[in-house]
């Protein structure tokens, strides 16, 4: 049964697993870059969902369903932009402190 038909849910489960893995990274990592890695995993989780939904939809007039794929392409762009800015910020902090341990970003408090 396990090896039987691979359906939408299987892909969604993979996505969920990726998402949770990303969350674990986000929650447990002290290194800012490692947190970014977690974020990328979460984005990919969403992307798998989107592409999977496309695949499991009825085609009309023999045209491929690409709504989700288009979304994914934009997400790729956004992820890149986000990663660039985030890294720039992290490096900036690293520049002034020589550390990127997020637990030490604590000058801002009441």
């Amino acid at each position, binding site marked *: 049964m396990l090896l039987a038909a691979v359906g939408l849910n299987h892909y969604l489960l993979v996505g969920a697993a990726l998402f949770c893995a990303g969350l674990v990274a986000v929650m447990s990592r002290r290194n800012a870059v490692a947190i970014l890695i977690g974020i990328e995993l979460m984005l990919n989780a969403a992307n798998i969902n989107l592409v999977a939904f496309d695949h499991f939809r009825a085609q009309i007039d023999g045209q491929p369903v690409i709504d989700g794929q288009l979304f994914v392409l934009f997400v790729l762009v956004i992820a890149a932009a986000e990663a660039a800015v985030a890294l720039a910020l992290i490096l900036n902090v690293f520049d002034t402190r020589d550390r990127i341990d997020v637990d030490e970003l604590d000058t801002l*408090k009441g």
Partner: protein
Amino acid sequence: MSDATLQTLCFVVLAAPLLGFALQYTLGRRLAKGGDLLTIGAIGASLVCSLLIAYEALQGGAEFTKTFGPWTWLQVSETSTWTIGITLDGLTAVMLVVVTLVSFLVHVFSTAYMKGDPKYGLFFAWLQLFSFSMLVLVLANNLLHLFMGWELVGLCSYKLIGFWSEKPAPCNAARKAFITTRIGDLGMMLAICILGGAVGSFEFEAIFAAAARGDIAEPWLLLAGLGLFMAAAGKSAQLPLHVWLPDAMEGPTPVSALIHAATMVAAGVYLIGRMAPMLTPDVMVVIATVGAMTALVAGLIAMAQNDIKRVLAYSTVSQLGYMFLGLGVGAWHAGLFHLTTHAFFKALMFLGSGSVIHGCHHEQDMRKMGGLRKKMPITAWTFLIGVLAIAGVPWITSGFYSKDGILSGAYGVNPLLFWIGLGGAVLTAFYMMRLYVMTFEGEPRDAQVHDHAHESPKAMTVPLIVLAALTLIIGPLAWHTLMLAPPTGVEPAALWATLQSLEAEHHHAGTVMWMAIAAGIGGLLLGWLVFHTRREKLAALKAPLAPLENAFANKFWFDELYDAVLIRPAYALGRAFKVLDERVVDGLVNLVGRGGVTTGDVSGAHDRGVVDGLVRAIGHACQRLGGVFSALQSGRVRLYLSISVGALALALLLEHLL
């Protein structure tokens, strides 16, 4: 006299002392001789008018009743209009004369007695206001109006008792007097509330009519009556509210004569006399019983007092008790007549004691006196007349007539009350003789006091003589001529009617009269024997009687009792409430505030630090936990992320489980 004239006279009676007060209070210091002539003139005018009114009342006889007004004062609801107005009847007329006459004499007496006092002028001003207030009280045709006079009287009493307010004792006495009478006033307020609500008006006529019609529900009528008596008991120093009067002797002696002997304390009696038609039989019983008990207890206490004024004070309390006894047993005439006669002879004795005190340079302790008769003959002789009167020496003194009337009344209603009254009469005669003997007879016990003693000036002796004369003549004269009219306009309550008939039956009935005479004379003789002739021989009796004497001398520990039961607890309660207010009521508010802030600390934990917030929240009790929580030190990205994501997961989990 036409009604208009009478009305004018009433206004003059009222206006003269008020005007006197206003002028004296504002300008007194600048007037010649401190303004005493002005005030004497004012009260004199009042006196003259009062006499005219009294004459008119005499002409009118028992049916004489006049009402002026009522004028609308305030409308408190559409059905209830409160008025002011003046009532004139026999009772009022008598009271007017008593008040103005005694007041006039006291004014005269004070010009000498208060001479040299730095607040000489002020004293007269307050005497004026007092007279005014008392006259308001007496002339009122409604309860509210009466209550206003009543309260003003209280104020003046406060001011006059505490006249020498640099010293603590007069201050405390004044305060005690005011507050004690105010406790009594609660009863009056209660009565006012009940009657105001049920009748919608405070006019006596209306109240009596409503009471007779049964408009006022039975328990409330009873309560109103008791309330009125409570007020009367406060003002007239009846048990258990009598404690203020002896202390009030801290005031200048003329004040004691005017207020605490002749007039203000009589206001309670007047009130009960005035309101008699609405009092239910139950109330009457209470009044009679309290009166009798007071007569006896005060008499006992008076026996062991050594301060001349205090003896007189307790005697006053005791005599007031007689008056209530009289009213309570339905001897309405006798009770009020005793009020009148007592006013004169007690004023006489107070002024006499004032004369003694003046003559002895403000020495009040009888143990330091003795043999003063030779030094101050007029004072002594007039005082003796007073003593005889209060003891009820038959036929020649006024006290005989009034007291006899009361006792006969009591005899007909309740033998027990009669015997108590009779015992009181013996006591009265006895301690009065003790007072007289200790002061005026025998050997001088304190050479210094005796050597410097002197007879008082004319301004003091003349009032004494006048009062002594009145004491002698008023009884025989008035009893037959000045018939006090019973309250008009109402059918007397059933019991009231019975009582009246009883009184008529027993009036001057031989037995009672002779018993009263025997009590009076016996008491006097006993006193003479004990304190004059056989003093040394009786010293042997002193030891076994010591506990009794102790109880008398300590006034049955009423003051101590009140201090322990009422005053201290009240202050303690005040302090407790203060703490309650600051700690609990306000504390709760602050706690809410602080709780908010603390919650804020926790909810914004990363701002102040979870450690700080938590630690503060649990009251620094777990400071050591800081080490554990320091891992969660503030400002950390990951912590925030964990909380946020954790909350997200939790939300999903909850949604899922639900």
